[in-house]
């Protein structure tokens, strides 16, 4: 574990340096925004500097951090629940042909049901508690993770499985040396997709169902016609998502999948 943290820290500077291209393209987007804002009414599209100043104000007076923390807690706990249950059930379903065939239509139903539908159900079941956004996030994140885990197990090379049997690998070693490394290459992209979904869904759920969190704050700015405030919250949420994905998940993924890139 300490080793992983150390390699993560050691790889960070080079990784960040490699991110200049991405940063440049983001700055270009910002320039486009600024350009557009010169022609539009500030109520429709305030310029980025006003928005960033608003965000700075929100962050310095301390409100933003607590709202972000509340939203983050809900999104991450729903995501974590999905990650655990979805990965485990998906892998189990992948082990059996029958189970994967049965699970497929269920997952299609889950994917097809709009998150807003789940949200309404969750509001009926859980009221204004944390359970509503958490449940909505859980249901929205579940399908991609479940499918990724199932595909990962199903696509495992039969020859390697036979080899593992011939060398009498005990179940735990089979899990850690054979199944997990292969399945992780399917799971990681699914987890990253699901993380993005969790942030979007949690804000939507909060907007409609709770009295605190970023979504609730957005509802307030909307009712006050405060476009700069709304955009400031959106920038905060997107920034938090980018930070988690590119500073945490992406480097971990690179480390875990080093074998793949060295071919």
């Amino acid at each position: 574990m300490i080793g992983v943290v150390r390699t993560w820290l050691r790889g960070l500077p080079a990784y960040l340096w490699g991110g200049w291209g991405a940063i440049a393209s983001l700055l270009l987007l910002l320039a486009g925004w600024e350009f557009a804002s010169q022609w539009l009414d500030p109520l429709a599209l305030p310029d980025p500097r006003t928005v960033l100043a608003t965000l700075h104000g929100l962050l310095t007076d301390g409100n933003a951090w607590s709202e972000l923390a509340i939203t983050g807690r809900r999104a991450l706990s729903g995501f974590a629940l999905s990650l655990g249950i979805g990965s485990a059930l998906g892998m189990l379903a992948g082990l059996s042909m029958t189970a994967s065939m049965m699970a497929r239509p269920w997952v299609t139903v889950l994917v097809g049901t709009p998150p807003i539908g789940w949200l309404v159900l969750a509001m009926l079941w859980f009221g204004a508690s944390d359970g509503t956004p958490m449940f909505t996030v859980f249901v929205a994140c579940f399908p991609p993770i479940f499918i990724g885990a199932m595909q990962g197990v199903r696509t495992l090379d039969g020859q390697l499985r036979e080899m593992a049997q011939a060398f009498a690998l005990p179940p735990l070693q089979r899990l850690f040396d054979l199944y997990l490394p292969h399945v992780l290459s399917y799971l990681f992209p699914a987890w990253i997709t699901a993380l993005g979904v969790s942030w979007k869904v949690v804000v939507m759920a909060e907007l409609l169902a709770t009295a605190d969190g970023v979504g609730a704050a957005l509802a307030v700015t909307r009712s006050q016609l405060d476009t700069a405030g709304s955009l400031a919250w959106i920038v905060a949420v997107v920034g938090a998502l980018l930070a988690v994905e590119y500073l945490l998940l992406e480097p971990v993924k690179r480390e875990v999948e080093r074998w793949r890139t060295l071919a």
Partner: protein
Amino acid sequence: MAHAGVNTAALELAGVGHAYGARTVLSGIDLHLPAGRIHALVGPSGCGKTTLLHLVAGLLPLQDGTIRNGFARSACMFQQPRLLPWKSALDNIALGLKARGVPRAARHAQARDQARRFGLDDTALAQYPQQLSGGMQSRVALARALVLAPDLLLLDEAFSALDVGLKAELYRQLLAEQARRPMGVLMITHDLMEAVRLAHAVWVMAPAPGRIATGFRFDDAPAQRTDAQVYARTAGLLEDATVRASFGLDAPAPAAPLALAAVGGLRC
């Protein structure tokens, strides 16, 4: 790893048969493989050789007959290297030792020892399989089997896909290992010459259903055999009517049949 006294363990097959659904692929296979001997099963593709080996390795449930495996430890090498792509060559070699619960440092030391005998240096051992050449991968696969110090080694077309130079090298390494530590080797191959080069006994299988058609014994030490001997014996086997029929070859030229006995082969 000293083997005190004579190892009397053996692999014993009696009346082994197997069917996939209604299709019988093996029937009535009898085989006796004592320790320290190399037996080859040769036959055309589809004669059930691989099924037989899978039965011996326990990869398929036994349907018919009995298999008594008196050897304590067995190991396998397949036609493809079948290495884990996410593990270094060293960890791949040590895989079977890890399965036996050998601690990390000890299994790495043993794996390194074995690898060195096979000409794999530390640089190669630190690499992932896809960074290694096909020949290196095969060496890693053979090392992974032999590091387990098996009493019974099962080779499933292990050398079929390799070039002649690499084949010769792996034959040498296999025979050297066999000399160091006598083990029973059951190899299946469709290459008659490979069987004649390595084996003490060559069993020729015929298809539909897979059965042993005939067998030949060569009592000299495989490591001592010269190329000329191997060619002469292979030619001798190919004159045999049963062998020709098994491989679906035309009837032999009826000229003076080459006496296999003259080049050291005995029909079992």
